[in-house]
């Protein structure tokens, strides 16, 4: 599995398709969190939202950077296409580490927050982890092997991102961002955000399986 993840990340890196989503992420952070003076967790609500959008894009780019025939070759060498999907999910999470670290660090450096504690960083990291799981789920389900037409794939991805960001009852992204922005202490929101991150991990496992089954029908 390590070999698959390394291969995916190498292909993504060489394709340079990582640049637009990371640039977008950085712009969002710069515009929305620079010189914030409120609680750090509210800045993290913005950063986690930006990480979510960036993560969807990175995951889809990671899968789509390989040609369909190349993907089939990798599937045979890995011992089955479903293993490639598992590798994609892990590689997607690894790729999300970039916007997550940016999102955790930038508000601390560029903002004027009254206090920065380890607990706040920890809660921020948990929120990033949950949003990364949701992002990779959407990215996999809107990648080329699942939705063949590029236009339809982009529309589906945008629709999924908007729904997850805005609709109250769809976990875990909206709920996580709301908790972060509520102005409560890190200790107060730590547990529910950890629960949402765990839910995100379950969602990712289910979506990886769904993408694999859906793509394998061909």
């Amino acid at each position: 599995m390590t070999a698959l993840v390394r291969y995916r990340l190498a292909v993504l890196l060489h394709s340079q398709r990582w640049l637009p989503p990371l640039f977008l992420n950085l712009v969002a952070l710069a515009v929305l969190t620079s010189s914030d003076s409120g609680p750090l967790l509210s800045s993290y609500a913005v950063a986690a939202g930006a990480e979510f959008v960036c993560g969807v894009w990175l995951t889809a780019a990671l899968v789509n950077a390989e040609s369909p025939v190349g993907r089939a070759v990798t599937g045979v060498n890995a011992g089955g296409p479903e293993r490639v999907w598992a590798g994609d999910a892990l590689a997607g999470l690894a790729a999300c580490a970039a916007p997550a670290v940016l999102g955790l660090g930038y508000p601390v450096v560029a903002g004027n927050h009254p206090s920065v504690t380890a607990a706040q960083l920890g809660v921020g990291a948990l929120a990033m982890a949950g949003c990364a799981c949701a992002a990779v789920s959407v990215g996999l389900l809107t990648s080329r092997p699942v939705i063949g037409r590029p236009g339809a794939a982009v529309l589906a991805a945008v629709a999924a991102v908007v729904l997850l960001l805005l609709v109250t009852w769809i976990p875990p992204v909206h709920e996580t961002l709301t908790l972060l922005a509520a102005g409560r202490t890190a200790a107060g929101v730590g547990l529910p955000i950890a629960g949402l991150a765990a839910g995100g991990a379950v969602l990712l496992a289910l979506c990886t399986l769904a993408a694999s089954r859906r793509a394998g029908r061909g």
Partner: protein
Amino acid sequence: MAPVVRARGVAKQYGRRARPVLYGIDLEVAAGEVVAVRGANGSGKSTLLRILAGLTRPTAGTVDGRPRPVGWVPERFPPSERLSAAAYLVHQGRIRGLRADAARERAARLLERLALAGGAGTPMARLSKGNAQKVALAQAVLTPPALLVLDEPWSGLDAPARGVLAELIAETAGSGGAVVLTDHGGSASPTAAYLLEGGRLAPAGAEAAPLYEIVLGGAEETVLKVPATHRDAVLSDALARGRTVLGVRAL
């Protein structure tokens, strides 16, 4: 000999209302066998091969005993990756379970044998069809496959590379692997041949091309069984690589 892979009643239909591509295919391939599947364009050869390699799920029927590792050479291999051919092969070798240094060594040796023009450092996306086909061939044998599936492997390869391909097929079969390939006849000399027509598989007359046994010396002795059509290419390639020919014998 016991079959390495056995397809039973394999059928495939793309979409519910489409005409089925394959109807109830039964096929057994034993260790050391080289099976050719022939048929017109669009007769379902590639689909059958993808099912045997485990890439496509059949609509009905089963494939039993698919061994590991499988090597699959696609019909066309248009890579979009900007990785170099060497880096790509090292990654694929690691995915096949090799350690990084072993993968590097094996990839370099295969590319040298196949004489990749432009070198191993060329980005994959810039390779010509023939050279991309060489990379496609190399990735399938990075570790010796127990089942080697080749879709139109002869197309696009130059004469020396065809000799190496014949060697690789003979080596795989010689070390107990099963080989299934498609061709339009003439290029390979398989141990069994089938004709795929109207979605059904029927035995085709086995090729009349005689087999030759070539014994190569050098660091280690190798015995190859190659069809007459490839005898000269295999011999000249072996000599060019500094091997000694110990004997050639018609079988």
